[in-house]
């Protein structure tokens, strides 16, 4: 049933966020520390085990895949809800600071990625065909 997949996803997110909150409380930070990241790791792990055990049928998978494929539209909605006017009103410090930081960070990405570059760092295959399949 589709709801099994959705429920599995929901459970992973809740457990991850709860653990993230506990970590936040433990180290005295008023923020959720890595909750979403933990939820993702949990989902990866649970799906891996369930697939091995043969517990995850096609319709259950569809419940997770549906939400995964709604990702881009949700990001578009998120972009439309950002305080862009506020960012521009922040003046030159915000603009200069933000842009310089981004430029330097971009430049550092390949440097750090290269430090541990192995055979797993191979490009994914052709962009367009794969992406169409997933999101269109």
């Amino acid at each position, binding site marked *: 049933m589709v709801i099994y997949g959705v429920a599995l*996803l929901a459970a992973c997110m809740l457990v991850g966020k709860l653990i*993230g909150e506990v970590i936040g409380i433990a180290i005295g*930070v008023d*923020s*959720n*520390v*890595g909750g*979403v*990241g933990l939820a*993702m790791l949990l*989902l990866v792990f649970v*799906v891996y085990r369930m697939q091995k055990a043969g517990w995850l049928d096609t319709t259950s*998978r569809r419940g997770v895949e549906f939400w*995964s494929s*709604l*990702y*881009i*539209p*949700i*990001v*578009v*909605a*998120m*972009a*439309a*809800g*950002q*305080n*862009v006017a*506020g*960012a521009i009103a*922040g003046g*030159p*410090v*915000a603009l200069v*600071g*933000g*842009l310089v*930081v*981004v430029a330097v960070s*971009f*430049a*550092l*990405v*390949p440097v750090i*990625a290269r*430090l*541990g*570059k192995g055979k*797993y*760092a*191979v*490009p*994914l295959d052709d*962009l*367009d065909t*794969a*992406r169409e399949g*997933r*999101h269109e």
Partner: protein
Amino acid sequence: MSERLLDVIAGNGLITAFAAVGLLMLVCNLISKHLTAGRIHGSAIAIAAGLLLSYIGGVSTGGEDGLADIALFSGLGLMGGSMLRDFAIVATAFGVDVEELRKAGMNGVLALLVGIVVPFFLGGAIAYAFGYTDAVSVTTIGAGAATYIVGPVTGTAIGASSELIALSIAIGLVKSISVMIVTPMVARAISLNNPSAALVFGGMMDTTSGVAGGLAATDARLVPYGAMTATFYTGFGCLLGPSVLYLIVRGVLGG
């Protein structure tokens, strides 16, 4: 009568948002196909269009939630809010390859550290150059250069003024928004085409929104790798900002 009809649309906010975003994506995909010959992907155009619309919404209403401040589009706030966004982000982990994750793990941790410390001191130095020379100002603005969540959290913790906190949010927003727009353009130049680089990218850049938006427009399959490290960033930044980093700044500048 027109009021009652408008109520139907505004009263079904989330559904209106689905329809509006779907329409926007359709238009942007057509623009991508016919005006850019597919060179700029439709989702990148759609995200940029979303930001533009949010600017228009923000200017016309004076609010802080972009287009979502317009009553008719209030559902966008729910659709793009943290609950559904996080839900969809977690769902993208469904396609993650366990092996790739394990091999690139250490890189992600290193990227997280560099990704917080470098923007922090860079942002702080720029603040200093612009005349914000006391430790609290430099720390708050520097933390904002990490993310617009770390900025206010740090600022509040060390007693910064509300003007400073607004500035730290603004610098974080500029960063987040430019990451969304620039990522697909420079992806090739910085070899952002594999899970390992995406993991580093997520740790280097900032908030989940900037990284996720930028990667989604580059190659959607990279989103889970980047998002995974990016979600640790905010918590990690909130931890370091008001403590270690503030103490370092105070040690250098005094007071």
